[in-house]
């Protein structure tokens, strides 16, 4: 049977014809190509479905009202005109929430990663419960306790704390990951050179945790910026954040192009923040978590 074997050298030298090398063209050889094409189409269609709701919002936000709509930027004048209070409030709430989250999360992460103590697993579970409780439950529980016990209903502080409790676990995760990945030699070196523990923490550990902390900040910002359901419950009439403004506008005035402009602006800002996140950190601090 030896004469049937085709030696590779023989192919290179052109002694064996190309047809002999490939053999008959089987129809099934085409099959992977068709399958690949279908797979591409399927994925592109899926991605189209994801961006279409945003795309159509953007499109309507660029049109004038009336029978024959024309392209215009006038709707965005409303966003930075009559809606600007909501945008400013949203930014303020996001900033305060992120800041307070940092103050809460950094010590907690440090304790959870660097110390051994009893009940650590329980504490970790407790701190992660907000992540798994639906926003509606958080909202209803908070409004009841705000109304009758804390007196925080319709107040800026109440709004911020409602956001904090729902979002600080999301900050905890990247900061803990950053701290775990950090080699202890730097801290040891600082301590050996005579720096105190506090000095070591602020001059060595904290700067080295920087990427994890900024990852947490961006994630947190996006969540708080878009938080709607908890806000709906706990924000009183004086504190209308931007997503709540979108909701109110739809309920009171229907689907207006100006509201579309506000919604598009909010989504663009969130999207840019997330793009920044992926550019800077990839998915290093997510550990399998999507988003």
């Amino acid at each position: 049977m030896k004469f049937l074997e085709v030696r590779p050298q023989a192919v290179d030298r052109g002694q064996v014809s190309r047809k002999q090398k490939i053999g008959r063209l089987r129809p099934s050889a085409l099959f992977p190509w068709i399958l690949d094409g279908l797979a591409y189409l399927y994925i592109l269609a899926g991605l189209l479905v994801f961006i279409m709701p945003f795309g159509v919002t953007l499109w309507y936000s660029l049109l004038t009202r009336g029978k024959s709509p024309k392209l215009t930027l006038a709707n965005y004048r409303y966003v930075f005109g009559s809606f600007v209070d909501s945008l400013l409030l949203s930014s303020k709430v996001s900033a305060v929430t992120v800041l307070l989250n940092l103050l809460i999360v950094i010590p907690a992460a440090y304790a959870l990663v660097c110390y051994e103590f009893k009940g650590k697993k329980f504490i970790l579970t407790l701190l992660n419960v907000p992540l798994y409780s639906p926003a509606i439950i958080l909202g209803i529980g908070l409004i009841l306790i705000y109304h009758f016990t804390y007196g925080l209903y319709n107040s800026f502080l109440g709004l911020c704390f409602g956001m904090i409790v729902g979002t600080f676990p999301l900050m905890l995760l990247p900061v803990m990951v950053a701290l775990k990945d950090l080699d202890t030699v730097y801290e040891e070196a600082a301590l050996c050179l005579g720096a105190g523990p506090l000095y070591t923490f602020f001059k060595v550990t904290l700067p080295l945790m920087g990427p994890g902390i900024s990852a947490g900040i961006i994630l947190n910002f996006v969540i708080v910026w878009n938080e709607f359901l908890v806000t709906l419950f706990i924000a009183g009439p004086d504190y209308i954040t931007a997503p709540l403004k979108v909701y109110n506008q739809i309920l009171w005035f229907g689907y207006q192009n100006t509201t579309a402009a506000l919604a598009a602006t909010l989504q663009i800002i969130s999207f840019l923040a997330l793009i920044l996140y992926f550019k800077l950190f990839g998915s290093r601090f997510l550990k399998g978590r999507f988003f």
Partner: protein
Amino acid sequence: MRPGAPNIKRQLVPCLLLLPAVTVTVLFLVLPLFYLVMMSFTEGSSFFFEQRFTLENYRELFSRYQMVLRTTVFLAFASALVDLLLGYPFAYFLQTRFPYKDLARALMVFPLFGGLYLAFGLYYLFLPKGVLSPVLEKLGIPVLALLYSKTSVVLGMAILTFPFMVANIMTALQNIDPILKEAALCLGASRFRIFFRVTLPLTRSGMVAGFLMCFGWNLGAYEIPLFLGSQAEQQVVSIKMYQQALVMSNYGLSAALGMMIMVLSFSVTYLSLRFSKGALA
């Protein structure tokens, strides 16, 4: 210090460091949830004045509001099913054949910004004379019946939770040892056989975890049924809760409705965490 005495300082430092986080969690999560449980057993809004304990709320929940519970579970279940059926091929192709994963991931964050913007966008898409209507008409989909129907609500919810399903299944696919596929290939199995006998069974846990996650997430859906549903679809627990608490001031019933969501979604989350095996931290 005597040897063997508990080192107070060593225990004190982590406790102090954890204090703010634990305080916030207890004050703004554990206590409210405790209030919710207590409130569901008191009549009307009597909890804060003179408490009258009763089981009336739960009786009403399972009689008058049975339909609401059923609608909520049905919508969440249907959307999770749609997610699973459409999400598995999506995750599989994305994992095995699509080179631009970063692009896909960047575009997939849009539904995660929240149901509000999604409902807003889908309203424009489903509008009878909207942007999409000529395409839909060509495809033979009844455009007039699309908005304010079960279909639109289920589709909206499915799009909202689609990324969770894809993430779960992709993690499961990544965790498959390639040696198993190679072994099957060497033993002469065809591609279809490998898929159905090796890949699919090995990603079962990811499918279950994704399904449960989508289901649990959609139990608390508020904006999508409100904006895309008709009267029938608006009979979901979260909308009823909002009405009972903030419009009717009937806190007892609202809390009982919340308890149902809480029990369902915590058990679903627990199960999905068991199944996902750390896929989602």
